């Protein structure tokens, strides 16, 4: 049906925004407006910078070697004997150990997500798309998986295979992918029934294209949020392992290990437990803020 010329003119005359705001630009705007999320992102960026620069700073002697013991100045308070944040029971510099510890925490947090993302996506997409037996198998499997609390399973795996960096990453990844796979499956199941999928299918899209072009991009928001919340969870698990003494072995500086060491000497040197504890707490808090911000930004319907 052809429109009369006047109507077309009226349509054109409508005030159309100069620039089309896409989903991602829109989300970015909402994220930026969330002050806590921006604060969290700034803190995390700062932490990444510290983690990257720590070896360089130690090389040039700006911060002390995290492993160097200074036996004449053990358990120095903050500011004493040239230790900005004090020293531990072996006279090692707390500030420097904190900075090096951030490398372990951040790499656990991010690498674990990098490991589980392809696994969770593949299994979640397969189960959600194919349904039927594969789906059933996955669901039964996750039922069993959920009977193990995360921490217990990680503890058992690490006790069996020894506390190497690889085992710890692997064990944490092993307990983390299930949640992601379940989420992806749920997303796919709900999107699969939408009209545009039907349209794509009826116009001859291959299943492969359907998954990559339609199902995946449309479930990206919740996936990003889940992965973001997975980072603090992985950092927490690694810190607990170190705290319980079955994590990455000394003398490597990790935050959990530092809390443990400081806690053993808490009466004579309380500051050596306070600083690593604060570092862990605020790092996790920052990621939580980012996660909350992303959820609000990427899923406007969720907002209260």
């Amino acid at each position, binding site marked *: 049906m052809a429109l009369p010329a006047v109507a077309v003119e009226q349509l054109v005359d409508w005030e159309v925004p100069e620039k089309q705001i896409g989903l991602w630009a829109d989300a970015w705007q909402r994220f930026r407006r969330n002050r806590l999320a921006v604060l969290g992102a700034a803190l995390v960026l700062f932490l990444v910078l510290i983690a990257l620069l720590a070896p360089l700073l130690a090389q040039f002697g700006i911060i002390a070697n995290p492993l160097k013991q200074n036996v004449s100045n053990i358990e120095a308070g903050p500011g004493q004997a040239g230790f900005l944040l004090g020293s531990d029971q072996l006279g090692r510099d707390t500030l420097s150990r904190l900075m090096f510890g951030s490398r372990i925490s951040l790499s656990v947090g991010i690498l674990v997500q990098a490991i589980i993302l392809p696994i969770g996506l593949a299994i979640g997409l397969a189960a959600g798309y194919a349904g039927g037996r594969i789906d059933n198998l996955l669901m039964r499997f996750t039922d*069993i998986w959920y009977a193990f609390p995360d921490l217990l399973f990680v503890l*058992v795996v690490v*006790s069996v295979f020894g506390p190497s960096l690889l085992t710890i990453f692997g064990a944490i990844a092993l307990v983390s992918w299930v949640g992601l796979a379940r989420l992806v499956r749920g997303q796919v199941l709900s999107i699969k029934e939408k009209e545009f999928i039907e349209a794509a299918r009826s116009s001859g899209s291959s299943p492969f294209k359907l998954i990559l072009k339609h199902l995946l991009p449309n479930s990206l928001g919740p996936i990003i949020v889940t992965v973001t919340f997975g980072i603090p969870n992985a950092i927490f698990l690694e810190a607990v392992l170190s*705290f319980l003494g079955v994590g990455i072995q000394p003398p490597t500086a990790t935050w959990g290990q530092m809390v443990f060491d400081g806690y053993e000497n808490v009466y004579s040197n*309380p500051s050596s437990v306070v600083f690593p504890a604060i570092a*862990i707490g605020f790092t*996790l*808090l920052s990621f939580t803020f980012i996660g909350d911000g992303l959820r609000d930004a990427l899923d406007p319907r969720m907002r209260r």
Partner: protein
Amino acid sequence: MAVIAGRPKRGALLPSRLASLTDSRAGSLAIFIVRRILWMVPVVFFVILITFVLMHLAPGSPWDKNGGRQLSQTVVNNLNARYGLNKPVTEQFWLYLVNVLHFDFGLSYQYEGKTVASLIMTSWPYTVAIGVISFLLIIPVGVGLGVLAALRQNSRVDYITMGFATFAASFPNFVVGALMVVAFSVLMYKATGGNFFLPAAGFGPDDHLVLPVITLSLLPIAFTARLTRASTLDTIRQDFIRTAWAKGLSERLVVVRHILKNSLIPVVTTLGPTFAFLVTGSVIVETLFSIPGIGRSFVVAIESRDYPMILGTTVLFSVIIALANLAVDVAYVFIDPRVRLTE
């Protein structure tokens, strides 16, 4: 999810003799419970299988020493014979299953001549004591804070409560516990000259419980408060609440009879996971406060590769968690008449 709303597929897979049972609500509830209990059997079986396989994949044997003099081959052979490790792995697994069915969890490797069951029974009461007290604290405090925050939405009370909940949910409990020890044990001891402080270690039916219970409860309280607030906000906006106010009921009546009753339904479902958290949280809290409970003995068993002890504790934990989830699912049916049973 075992419990979902909507129409059930009644008696789909049941023999006709049982089909009449499903006609009544009580009958379908009974069948639901039986099915859930039966489903626990494969779950626990796989938990045992996975843990068992992991232990036998472990490089080396439990008799390896970290440095120092190694045991002679004769001694190792004798130990293997004593603990049945010389049998084929499949036979060991079968024997273990049969023994577990008789509540026999084997002998501990680290304590000569002690059974795993007796070790668990000595440490278990400490864990239960702290867990139960925490549980009794979590429900009223978490629900109270959540309802308060929702009723005074966007007020200062709301912001403070939710701020606290966010902090408590992000700070890991070993960090919170360690910081509390610094504040209430060390600094307070030093400030008051040792007259007033909270003990940081050991177990006693007195102020020894304060720090461990708070450390264990903080995260579940935060979760409960958040959830209660969200569901109360949902309930408040319902028509029947407006009706209740319009009828001129007192605030107490509206809140207790109408709001709480409905907003607590989703909270009940989290009690299962909360229970699971109390079980695993005890591993951290008992290490932190040197409490001789089952969590502490689990960590010790892991450090010394005491496989029967690890296996026994894992099985016990998974059974408890499965039972807790079952109890929640059943309770849910009683609390919310809208829920129908499926699967």
